[in-house]
């Protein structure tokens, strides 16, 4: 039984169906990536998994429990953390307060302190700026904060929505190598990316989304060598 199982998920904004029946799973310990063009429905999928959007149909099972109908604020407690698209850090709170909010529901204060140190080790720049308002950070630093904040809940599954969006190549490298580091440490990750090359090289499994559907699935390696993927997403003719 996979850690996360999505079956026949459909999600609509009013009359517009953005996700039109997708199924996929994530096994504990693996990195799964959803790639696809703008508007494919990747963010919609993640927001539905987090309970921010209500599905039209389909079933979401996480860690043996059905997530349908569970309010968003209870889902993180079940072990599903979400680093949202566009980072969405709390700009007028300090870095440390942002990180503390990531552990909002945790009662194990000693372990939370340990995790805070771990995040600071992962991203030393955050440690240096811990008292600074998060809104003053650069885009890349904000991305680190968003990831660190999600990690602070000590999730069973970490969902990252376009962590490399809008970053310089160097910053993108840094973020991707952090994801690799987390993977090596055993963190289960569902990664949404437009940077297909980077995502597929990290992922155990990948799914290509096109206008609300999964058009192709395979291991990261398979997809990276697939003719159509190379054409559409890796910029080759």
């Amino acid at each position: 039984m996979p850690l996360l199982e999505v079956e026949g998920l459909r999600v609509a904004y009013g009359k517009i169906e953005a996700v039109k029946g997708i199924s996929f799973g994530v096994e504990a310990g693996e990195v799964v990536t959803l790639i696809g063009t703008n508007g494919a429905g990747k963010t919609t999928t993640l927001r539905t998994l987090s309970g921010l959007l209500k599905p039209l149909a389909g079933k979401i099972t996480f860690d043996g429990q059905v997530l349908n109908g569970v309010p968003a604020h209870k889902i993180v407690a079940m072990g599903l953390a979400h680093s949202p698209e566009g980072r969405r850090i709390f700009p007028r709170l300090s870095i440390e307060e942002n990180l503390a909010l990531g552990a909002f529901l945790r009662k194990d204060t000693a372990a939370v302190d340990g995790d805070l140190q771990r995040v600071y080790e992962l991203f030393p720049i955050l440690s240096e700026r811990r008292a600074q308002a998060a809104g003053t950070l650069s885009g890349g630093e904000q991305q680190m904060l968003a990831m660190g904040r999600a990690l602070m809940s000590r999730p069973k599954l970490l969902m990252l929505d376009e962590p490399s969006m809008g970053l310089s190549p160097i910053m993108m490298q840094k973020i991707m190598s952090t994801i690799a580091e987390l993977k090596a440490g055993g963190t289960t990750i569902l990664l949404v990316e437009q940077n297909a090359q980077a995502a597929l090289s990290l992922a155990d499994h990948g799914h290509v989304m096109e206008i609300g559907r999964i058009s192709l699935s395979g291991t990261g390696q398979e997809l990276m060598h697939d003719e159509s993927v190379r054409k559409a997403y890796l910029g080759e003719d």
Partner: protein
Amino acid sequence: MHDLPDQLTNGLALGALYGLIAIGYTMVYGIVQLINFAHGEIFMIGGFGALTAYLWLPDGTGLTLALPLMLLLGVVCATLVAVGAERFAYRPLRGGPRLSPLITAIGLSLALQQAVWAFYPDAKKARPFPQFQGGDFDLGFVTLSREDLFIFIAAPVCMIALALFVAKTRTGRAMQATSQDPDTAKLMGINTDRIIVLAFAIGGAFAAIAAVAQGFKTGEVQFRMGFIAGLKAFTAAVLGGIGNIYGAMIGGLVLGVAEAMAIAYVGDIPGMEQFGGGSWKDVWAFILLILVLLLRPQGLLGERLADRA
């Protein structure tokens, strides 16, 4: 009465009262971007709650004894009404068109006025509110009335308690997060519905305290007292930068002082004699509001909307 320190004191007391009410507008707006136009009536309910507590007590109970009970019942009534309004009038409309809660607020205001009227059939005429016994304190440079002293104690206590709560407690941090980005706050595990209820509750409690203060100041409560007070406090909230709790208090103080100064001194300006005195005070308050909206629409402490992520 034209003595500057006395006028300033008067203005600051009035302003602190506006500021306390304005907190309710600004907190709710900061979290759900909703102007609770029934907040003036919640203030009024607080006043009647306090009066009811006083009337329950045996005749001739001194205010020192009665005051805690009056505050308690006023706060309980106003808070319950505020929370009920959120739960039953505003929450069902959340996510709908912007205009619906506004219309609901008008209906709710009228309903609350009528409800009080039903309990107090002569509430229209104004009910006498208990008064402090004993004279003013003469501090040399200024005389301080007992009513004003009450406000000068109550307002800072409320403000400091709120500021500490928001900045230092876990729930306060959750409140800030919800106001900055409600969806992401949910991702942190914050029950944002509860935070919204809390914002209404705090606003209701502060409004009730302000209503007691106004009862002392004017010597009466009546079922329409929420209208002008609410409008003034809303002005204060906008003046200070809506969404900002410190702005609400500062906006209140600026408004109160401006009003007191205008009442006392405008009539002394040659050619402006007919505009002096109390009858024009509301006009000055709203002229100030219009000026701020024209010159600094984000308010004194507000950020430009572009700065809000």
